[in-house]
């Protein structure tokens, strides 16, 4: 379900309403969801999906997801956080997730950018260049 032009426009407006000072606000999102539930606009499902995609993309921009193989400490987390905050000019919070398929090293994902310094990544790059 892709939604027509009007639905896309509405989803965009609702998304803009959900931001406070350029950041997603939980209170605003709750308000928007309540509004959708009450009004039941046409193509509700498509609208919700579009809205979800926009919010998820926005949230991902201020999240640094650190995938790691092997242990990782709090200070490393803080380091990544401050580096990314500086780089993207917005508050970025980091969270860690263990992923043994990387063999060793880190992979940091912020929005649609991926910073990779893993053995698995280097192996893949090597394989691609062959």
């Amino acid at each position: 379900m892709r939604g027509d032009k009007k639905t896309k426009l509405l989803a965009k407006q609702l998304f803009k309403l959900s931001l406070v000072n350029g950041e997603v606000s939980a209170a605003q999102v709750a308000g928007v969801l309540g509004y959708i539930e009450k009004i039941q606009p046409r193509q509700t499902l498509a609208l919700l999906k579009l809205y979800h995609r926009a919010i998820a993309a926005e949230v991902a921009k201020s999240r640094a997801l650190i995938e790691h193989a092997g242990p990782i400490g709090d200070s490393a987390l803080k380091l990544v956080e401050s580096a990314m905050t500086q780089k993207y000019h917005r508050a970025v919070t980091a969270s860690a997730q263990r992923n043994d398929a990387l063999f060793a090293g880190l992979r940091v994902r912020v929005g649609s950018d991926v910073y990779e310094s893993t053995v698995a990544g280097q192996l893949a790059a090597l394989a691609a260049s062959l």
Partner: protein
Amino acid sequence: MSTVIEQIEQQIAQLSNKAVKKNTGHILTVADGVAKLDGLSDVMYNEMVQFPGGAIGIALNLEEDEVGCVILGDVSNLKEGDEVQTTGKLLSVPVGKALLGRVVDALGRPVDGKGPIDSKEFYPVEKIAPGIIVRKSVSQPLFTGIMAIDSMIPIGRGQRELIIGDRGTGKTTICIDTIINQGRINKVGLASGDKNFRPVYSIYVAIGQKQSNIVRTISALEAAGALEFTVIVAAPAADNPANQYIAPYSGASIGEWFMENGMDALIVYDDLSKHAVAYRQISLILKRPSGREAYPGDVFYLHSRLLERAARLDGKGSLTALPIVETLAGDVSAYIPTNIISITDGQIFLETDLFNQGIRPAVSVGLSVSRVGSSAQIKATKQVGGKLKGELAQFRELAAFAQFGSDLDAKTKAQLDRGSRIVELFKQPQLNPIAIELQVSVLWALQKEYFSSVEVKQVVGAAASLRDYLATRKDALLTKIRTKAALDAALDAELKTACDEWKGTFAAK
């Protein structure tokens, strides 16, 4: 102990700052060789996008929250949610002399089973055409080996000459003959050891054609010994539209390498009608607004940016383009034909009527023009064929008129007679280009009335016999005509002796 670990961890964190950055996204939908992607916030227009499983896409639509992308390669394993990433590279193809004699696909990968291609250099597929300042006007001839063209609609190096006509009127044949002729000229020129000789390398781009036709073309070139000077870029009908869309640009890049490195090249796009159709298909799936005949609005730019890449560069080489366009029922005012006519430097119009009457190649002399080629024509051809175009046009008019009037005066009759002989003389079987010195000799003989006494029906045979005679016995004379490229009194006399001798043998038969 814990401080040591902290240190290592900091090291790792620093590493992650130096790490390779990738920009990623996910597949939203895939259909008909086109994918819609989200993410990819850094993607550039026309950038290569890496799909899982080795397929490559090209970002064509950059929208607010989506990227539309055509996929080159196998799409059968792609599914919604798959991760894709940008590569930071524009699509490029291998270029260089290593490609000569090879058949490659739209991405420059060999498809002829002759092993990998050893080329070091790559050129981007989409390149901005050379500007005004570096261009030079056309002044060197490119001989097609087809008498009607070389004598009346001459083509120069760096020119763009459209070959246009209905289905099955011999469009491909003209281009193949031209490539074969380049092969022959190259062999003679390279063997002569002349330092000023400039070989012409050919690129044949097959777009949306049947595999069997492409195979036939390849074997024709191979049999004629021209394949070693030719690169074939194949995007057959069974290929997905994205490959058909890219193929001519890839071919142009391969040709540009020759031009940039001081060599001359010829590129044939067979054909741009099918190219436009492939592009229309992509555009409709990408939901771009469509205009006339359902083509997208930028279909003119599609071909202009391609054909503008053919040029003659100051101090470097040249790239000559022969685009082919198919018309429906001879209608040159359809959208794609008018567009391309306006971008090219002339057109060779092939007519179904002529073809069916057995006048082959079916070049309609009245409707064909070459806007810049005459400055590239050699003097000898001008001397013997300068008036032919006018004479033929007059003949057509008279012939139409003569159908109604029964009794014609002697002068008109003579003109009709001569006209029908000229028409016969220009008939030429396929895969049989004629060297320019032979063309000059035959036209000289025509000018000096050697064919006037020959029956109209036997003119074709007489011309062939004259060519045979000269080729086998008068090699020195032919070489002189070729190298001097102009006729003087001495050559005139030699030609006269040769033709008189031939006339004797021909009449005796």
